[in-house]
């Protein structure tokens, strides 16, 4: 089991948004999180990535296997595309970035300052970062935002290749990627009920 979540509850801004959530992700599989805006997809992904502590429950994953890609791509506008990518490759202890550049058709743009890229190209650069990390479980938050149709297909191919190589992906997206190994998880049944204040202070509020 690559990633296992049991009885997880997460909160955003002090309010519990999801509770009782359990699922498991095995190698070669992708899990797509579905649910309306504000249900807690981002919060869930950040909790699994370890950026915030869950209210309760356990996240079990092999150490150093997760990589998180959020709404922001973490791109430095003054560095070139290849410099941005090599920085992240070095952070994760890798050297080779040419494969990642190829996979997202960024090779012709390699020497361009990242600040000059369009929104879609920036996103492609942000996604290329996943490839240089060498991590097995990808946590993706709306990965296809601002990508055009070709780029979405490109991204679907990359994810399929990653799954084929024994990786796994947990993603929040509204777009159909056409992945053969993907299952869906609807978050609506896990929406937390409004929390009753049952502690002593509650009587005075």
């Amino acid at each position, binding site marked *: 089991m690559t990633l296992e979540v049991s009885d997880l509850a997460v909160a955003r801004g002090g309010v519990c948004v999801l509770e009782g959530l359990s699922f498991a992700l095995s190698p070669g599989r992708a899990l797509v999180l579905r649910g309306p805006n504000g249900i807690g997809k981002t919060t869930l992904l*950040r909790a699994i*990535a*370890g*950026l*915030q*502590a869950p209210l309760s429950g356990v996240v079990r994953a092999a150490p*150093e296997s*997760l*990589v*998180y*890609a*959020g*709404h*922001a*791509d*973490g*791109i*430095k*506008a*003054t*560095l070139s595309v290849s410099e941005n990518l*090599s*920085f*992240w490759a*070095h*952070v*994760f*202890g890798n050297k080779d970035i040419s494969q990642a550049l190829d996979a997202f058709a960024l090779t012709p743009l390699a020497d361009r300052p990242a600040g000059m890229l369009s929104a879609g190209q920036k996103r492609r650069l942000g996604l290329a*970062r996943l490839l240089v990390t060498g991590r097995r479980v990808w946590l993706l938050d709306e990965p296809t935002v601002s990508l055009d149709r070709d780029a979405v297909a490109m991204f679907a191919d990359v994810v399929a290749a990653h799954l084929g190589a024994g990786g796994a992906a947990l993603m929040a997206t509204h777009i159909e990627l056409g992945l053969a190994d993907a299952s869906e998880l609807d978050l609506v049944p896990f929406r937390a009920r409004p929390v009753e204040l049952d502690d002593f202070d509650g009587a005075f509020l």
Partner: protein
Amino acid sequence: MRDLRLAVRAGGGFGLGLAFFLIVVTLVPFAVGPRTELLAAIAPGILWLGALLACLLSLDRILALDWEDGSLDLLATAPLPMEGTVSVKALAHWLTTGLPLVLASPVLGLLLSLPAAGYGPLVLSLLVGTPALSVIGTFGAALTVGLRRGGLLLSLLVLPLYVPTLIFGAEVARRGAGALDYATPLLMLAGITCGTIAVLPFASAAVLRVNLR
């Protein structure tokens, strides 16, 4: 650590602190008037205060830029210890801000007619003291990261923490200018710097983890 290169190159604001230091110190003779002996007496204090304010100016760039473009989240999930990341950030800040100030200070000492005996101690005190300014500043930046318009709050938080460094740093420079023995305040200054470097990266990392939630 490649974070250094990134911080240095993407930091911008490199010349900004130095230029600010230059202007503040140049303005002082205009404000005080051309009285050489008075200028010589206040020169060490003015130079230290100028360096401190110049340092303060660039503090919010340490982490705010990384926060805005999401790199900070990604760095937090990267296999680097957070303590290491903030230490490198502080080091990068010192190299881009503190070190140029140290190198420029003798020239500005000339402008303020600092006595000849004072140049060595002045440079030495800044060299020993400015790393503490960067490390304390990084702690302040970690406290205020994610706050909109956190710059003013950052200054208010950090300036009181700069007081010990300022006292001993200016004291070294002042005693040096008066050709007195300055070993004791210099040791105290070095102690403060070592202490902050040893302790504050851990505090900054802890605060940053809380702020990233």
